[in-house]
């Protein structure tokens, strides 16, 4: 890859301008929440681990929880000149790595996805692509130049656009 990639680690969130590549490696039950303003080409990615900061008041990493992460992402993107009304979202991850998918106590992946969708709906951010669930981990890349996302699974040997 000729361009350098900006890696977004666990519980991190990052915002980039045009011509950059955001990447989140090996997403299992976590969710990669990507927000994008196609006019300013400002893109942000949050590597969310848990649905809500509720009950984790001492944890200061805002990128860790869906509620605080999306809030922070929107704020940071606006500060760089993105227009909140133009934002679209793409989300990926939320897999069920262990146990039964129907067991919602354990299936933190599904709970993460549900929470992310709910927040985006409340914020009236259009969910343009949603590649979530299943029983496999994903690596997600996003190209701020054209708004394209790529998902790959080493386990299944697949790569697809989203």
């Amino acid at each position: 890859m000729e361009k350098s990639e900006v890696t977004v680690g666990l519980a991190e969130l990052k915002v980039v301008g045009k011509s950059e590549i955001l990447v989140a490696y090996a997403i299992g039950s976590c969710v990669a929440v990507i927000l994008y303003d196609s006019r300013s080409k400002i893109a942000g990615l949050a590597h969310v681990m848990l649905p809500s900061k509720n009950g984790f008041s001492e944890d200061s990493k805002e990128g860790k929880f869906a509620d605080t992460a999306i809030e922070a992402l929107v704020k940071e993107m606006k500060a760089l000149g993105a227009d909140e009304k133009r934002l679209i979202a793409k989300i990926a991850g939320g897999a069920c790595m262990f146990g039964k998918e129907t067991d919602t106590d354990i299936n933190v992946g599904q709970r993460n996805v549900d929470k992310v969708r709910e927040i985006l709906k409340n914020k009236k951010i259009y969910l343009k692509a949603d590649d979530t669930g299943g029983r496999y981990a994903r690596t997600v890349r996003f190209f701020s130049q054209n708004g394209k996302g790529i998902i790959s699974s080493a386990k299944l040997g697949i790569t697809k656009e989203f």
Partner: protein
Amino acid sequence: MLNEQQKDALKEVGSIGAGHAATALSQLVDKKVLVTVPRLEIIPIEQMTQFMGDPENLVTALKTNILGDISGKILFILERENALFVADMLKGTELGSTKTFNEIDEKMLTQAGNILVMAYLNALTRLTGLAILSSQPDFVFDMMGAILSTVCTEDGINIEQAVIIDADFVEESNKVKGRLIFMPVQDSLKAILDAIKI
């Protein structure tokens, strides 16, 4: 942070557990399996993914939940190539013939991995006198980073440190690197260190 004496105590548990595991594996494959002296690291949970290297590495993992006097999780991890090799050994097929994991491979790897985990938990029980129970193990094959992050978040328990035990299992000229990750919840780690008798 743990002091040297506490670290040594945990090392001892690892060594005894690995020794017993090697004996049990020898019986299982009907060949002499030896084990090297385990290496032990204790790291804060947030550094774990960094410590493990490339998050996209494909591994098999056996996850067991721990209950009873202590609670937490244990993962037994094999890199893909090592796991394929072990599957061949367990089935008695020619080395290199297993290319992917089917249901039978998963079962056999679960069984063998479970012996290792139980050997470790037995050593822990013996040295601490604590009652330690375990759930049925859960097998997964996927990217290491995804497995670790899921295990750390799946039921909102507070794990702060991970005890990582690496040991090589050797059968003639063949070597398999096994990695056991013991993640007691914070109170449980303290309970173990308080109870340990060496």
